[in-house]
């Protein structure tokens, strides 16, 4: 599937997560943010997104606890930055796959 964000066509899965991180840029993150109700992105948001992308490149499974221990934000701050879906929304905005779960 394809979608246009900030004038650029990107590949996404059924739930709208980018399937190719190389297609990501900051403008795309801003547009996805608006879709999920996060209208203003601060430097802190982008720091978290960069951390998630880095973990993804290293093939490290993501967890809220992991982000909380990243030194960038604690868990409470992560929830404040990405309300109602800290890992779900931040992953989507970072252009990486939705964190896995079983069924």
């Amino acid at each position, binding site marked *: 599937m394809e979608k246009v964000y900030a004038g650029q066509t990107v590949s996404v899965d*059924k739930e709208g997560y980018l399937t190719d991180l190389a297609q990501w840029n900051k403008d795309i993150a801003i547009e996805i943010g608006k879709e999920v109700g996060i209208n203003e992105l601060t430097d802190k948001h982008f720091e978290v997104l960069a951390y998630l992308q880095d973990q993804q490149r290293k*093939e*490290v*499974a993501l*967890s*809220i*606890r*992991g982000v909380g*221990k990243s030194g960038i934000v604690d*868990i*409470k701050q992560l*929830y404040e930055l990405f*309300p*109602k*879906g*800290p890992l*779900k929304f931040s992953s989507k905005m970072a252009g990486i796959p939705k*964190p*896995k*779960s*079983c*069924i």
Partner: protein
Amino acid sequence: MKKLVILGAGTAGTMMASHLIKKLKKSDWEITIVDQYKTHYYQPGFLFLPFDTYKPEDVKKSIDEFIPKGVKLIREKIDFIDKDSDTVVLENGTKLTYDILILATGTKTAPGEVQGMLGDYWYKTIFDFYTFEGALALRDKLRDWKGGKLVIHITEMPIKCPVAPLEFAFLADTFFINKGIRDKVDITYVTPLSGAFTKEKCTTALTYLLKDKNIKIVPDFAVEHIDGENGKIVDYGGEEVPFDLLVTIPTNMGDDLMSRSGIGDDMNYVPTDKNTLQTKVKENIFALGDCTNVPASKAGSVAHFQAEILTENILLYIEGKELKPDFDGHANCFIETGHGKALLIDFNYEYEPVSGKFPFAGIGPLNLLTESRLNHWGKLAFRWVYWNMLLPARKLPFITPKMSKAGKNFD
């Protein structure tokens, strides 16, 4: 004489010992397994203890019973692994050197990780059932409980057996119906995930289970603390869910040994190649079962499939050959749905659980993603299979380590 050391004599470690003793030359290799405990628990049985379906004696046997002849068992706590000198140091000071090390130390609940979980209300109104003690304490509570708000709650992922909390909810529904007090029990399922079934096909196929059983769901809930005194769980966003009886799945963490040895991630899981099961710690250290960070389910069936593939890879490693990236994340799980029925799911890294027949394409006799009595009997029969086939590494007929796509509806 070369040395192979396995850490952990649970499901994964015992199966590896059983496989390797058959494959490695006794004149060339000495196999040692280390575990501090005496009892081997059949962990899938913990689900049935709270409802009095299984008795304690149904789920426990001696570890020694399953260590194959020719394998040396050392009952001692492990202090740390010194990967640089290929040595495991035990708490009594003994040093075990190894040529190959296999990690199979599993995962444990860590209720201390959430504020308010452990304390005055633990095993009074707040319970787990992922431990033998917790499951028995909950059984005693349920025997006398007169009803109220029952909350079933997952703290954070990953957890051992991700479907067990749902099974608990379904079995609780049946349990209270049979007791004649279902109308006095309000069941709520609280999860940090976006739904009870997060995969698309499962959600389509299984949402009716929650509706039919009148189980409410609160998704996207990440607990910040538990207020035992006022009976409520509170999430980071300030949302509150009240309870009279909380059945929680605490944070799961790998063994603290990994942290002591400087080889774990922030959950004490071991960074491991998800296809070969060689760790990223050192090339002569391998890992399987719940102790790894691979993105597969933490479940016995996964450990079983991994054990077959890791055995092949250990043999290749010994011969100096390239490892095979053969583990595909395959899991195969029965899901109890109550009233004597169960579902069966079969999936891997790439494919989500789908409907179809198992293990024979078009024939079954087991149905995937569909409730049946046969699936329930399959789940109960599995206890025998576990003790008598799985732990001694006897091949299960017709079930392959890699997921088969035959007979499944992928459309």
